C-alpha cells in the first residue's frame, strides 16, 4: 500500500510542477492582454506617436520593427543556406564540421548585448554605417544566423538518402544536385528557420537599442543611414521614464502588438515542422 501512496503523491507533485509552466504562459498572455487591451484601437495601430509616446499610436514603431526583422532575415538567409550546404554537401573534413558546429552554438549562446556593443564598433564605426537601420539589420542578421542555419541543416540532413542517390545516378553534379534535389526537399526547414529567426529578431532589444533606433523625431528611414523607431525600444523608453499611467498603457499596448507578432511567427513554424525540434533547445 505504501508504494502506491508514494506513487500517487509523487505523480501529483510532478503534475502540479508541470502545470505551473502552462499557467505561466497563460498568466503572461493574460496580463499583457488585460493591460494592453484598453490601448488598442485603429488609431493606435495606424497613427504616429506624439507627446513622447503619451499620446497617439505606434504605427511607425511597428513598421520599424518589421523593417528591421525582415532586413535581418534577408541578409541572414543566404549566409545560413550557404553554411548549411557547405557543411552537409561540400566539406568532408570532420575538423571543419566540428569547428563550425562549435562556433554556431557559441554564437547562439552569446549574450545579445555583446552583439550590440561589438556590432556597433564593427559596422557602425569601422564600416561607418553609424546609428542606422542598416547597422541594426546587420547586427540582427548575425544574431539570428544560428537559428536559421541549424533549422536548414536539420532539414537537409533529414532528406532520405535515396533522393540523393537518385540524383547521383542521373549524373547530376554538385551544383545541380543542390539545385534540384537538396533545396526543393528542404524548403520547409528554410521557412521554419526564417520564421523563428524573424521571431527572435522581433523580440530583441539589447542589440539594437543604441545601434539602430531612435525614440522620436523620425518617422521612417529615408535612407539606409537613418535610424528607425521600433516597438521594443518604444516600450523600453516608456517603461523607464513613464510617470503617468497613460504612457504605461501605451507601453502595454505596444507590448501586446509585439507579443502578437512573435506568437504568430512561432505558431506558423509549428505548422511547418513535421518533427518537434524546439527553438528553446538551442
Amino acid at each position, binding site marked *: 500500500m505504501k*508504494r502506491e501512496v*508514494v*506513487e500517487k503523491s*509523487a*505523480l501529483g507533485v*510532478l*503534475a502540479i*510542477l*508541470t502545470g505551473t*509552466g502552462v499557467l*505561466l504562459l497563460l498568466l*503572461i498572455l493574460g496580463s*499583457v492582454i488585460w493591460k494592453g487591451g484598453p490601448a488598442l484601437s485603429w488609431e493606435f495601430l495606424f497613427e504616429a506617436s506624439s507627446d513622447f509616446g503619451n499620446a497617439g499610436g505606434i504605427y511607425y514603431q511597428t513598421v520599424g520593427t518589421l523593417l528591421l526583422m525582415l532586413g535581418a532575415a534577408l541578409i541572414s538567409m*543566404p*549566409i545560413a*543556406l*550557404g553554411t548549411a*550546404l557547405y*557543411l552537409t554537401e561540400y*566539406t568532408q573534413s570532420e575538423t571543419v564540421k*566540428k569547428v*563550425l*558546429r*562549435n*562556433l554556431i*552554438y*557559441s*554564437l547562439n*549562446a*552569446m*549574450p*545579445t*548585448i*555583446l552583439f*550590440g*556593443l*561589438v556590432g*556597433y*564598433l*564593427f559596422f557602425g*564605426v569601422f564600416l561607418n554605417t553609424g546609428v542606422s537601420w542598416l547597422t541594426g539589420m546587420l547586427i540582427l542578421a548575425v544574431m539570428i*544566423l544560428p537559428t536559421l542555419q541549424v533549422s536548414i541543416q536539420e532539414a537537409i540532413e533529414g532528406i532520405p538518402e535515396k533522393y540523393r542517390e537518385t540524383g547521383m545516378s542521373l549524373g547530376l553534379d554538385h551544383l545541380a544536385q543542390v539545385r534540384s534535389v537538396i533545396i526543393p526537399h528542404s524548403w520547409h526547414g528554410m521557412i521554419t528557420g526564417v520564421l523563428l529567426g524573424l521571431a*527572435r529578431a*522581433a*523580440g530583441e*532589444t*539589447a542589440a539594437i*537599442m*543604441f545601434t539602430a533606433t531612435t525614440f522620436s523625431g523620425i518617422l521612417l528611414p529615408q535612407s539606409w543611414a537613418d535610424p528607425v523607431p521600433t516597438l*521594443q525600444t518604444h516600450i*523600453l523608453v516608456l*517603461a523607464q521614464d513613464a510617470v503617468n499611467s497613460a504612457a504605461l498603457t501605451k507601453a502595454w499596448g505596444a*507590448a501586446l502588438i509585439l*507579443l502578437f507578432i*512573435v506568437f504568430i511567427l*512561432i505558431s506558423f513554424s509549428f505548422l511547418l515542422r513535421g518533427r*518537434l525540434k*524546439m527553438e*528553446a*533547445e538551442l
Partner: protein
Amino acid sequence: MAALSVVCAGTIFLYLLRESAPVFFAEGSGFLTRSDWWVGESYGAGSMIFGSFMVTGIALIIILPFALGGAVFTSEFLSPRWRLVIKSVMELLAGVPGIVYGLLGMSMLAVWVKSGFGLIDGNTIFTAGLLLGIMILPTIITLSEDALRSVPGEYRETALALGLTRIEMVWSTVIPQAVPGIIGAIFLGMGRAMGETIAVMLVIGGLDKIPAPWFDVFQAGQSIPSKLGREAAEAIGSGLHWNALMGLGLTLFLVVMTLSMAGNMFLKRVRM
C-alpha cells in the same frame, strides 16, 4: 559563406579583447576584484560580477524544481498529445520578448515582491533572479526533457518487469542515465540567465554595490549586462569608461562561453 560565420564569432572576441585592454593595464586584476566604479576615477567591476552570479544562482534555485519536475512528468507520464502541448507552450514562452518580461517584471513582479516582503523598493536582486528563473524555464525544461527521452526504452521495460512502480523506475533507472544531459541543460540555462539584459535592467535596481551582508538579496544590485545596457550608449568612444565597459563585456563573454561549451559537451552536441 561558411567562412563568414567563423569571421563573425572571431570578430566579437577580438574586438572585446582589443577594446578592453586599456582598462586591464590601468586597473590590473583589481578590475575584477574591487567594487568601486566611479566614472573618471576608478573602475572595479566586483559588484557587477557578484550581481551576475547572484541573480543566476537565485534563478536556478527557484526554477529547478519546476523545470526538472516538469521535464520528468512531460517525458515519462504524459501522452504524446500532451507532450506536444507542453513543448509548444515552452516554445511560446521562450519566444516572449525580453522587453515584455521586463515590463511584466517592472510593473507586476516588483510590486508583488515589494508588498510580499515588506520592502521600500521592489527592484532588487531577488526580483531579477525570480524573473530570470521564469525566463530560463523553457530552456531547461525542453533540454532536460530531451535528455530523459533519449534514455532507451529497454531500461524502462526491464525496470517495470522487475516489479518497480513507474515512479521508482524513473527515479532509479531513467534519471541516473539522463544526468549528463540534465547538467548540460542547466549550464545552457545559466548562460542564458547570465546574458539577459533588458529584463534584468528594468528590475534589478541599478546600484553598483555588493549588498551588506552579501546574502541580503532584497537590496538593489547590478549585473554585468544591466550595467552595459545602462551606460554603453553614453560611453561610446569616451576613453577609459568605454574600455571598462568592454572589459565587463569580455568578462561576460568568457563566462557565458565557458558555460555554453560545458553545456554543449554534456549534451554531446559537440566534442572537443
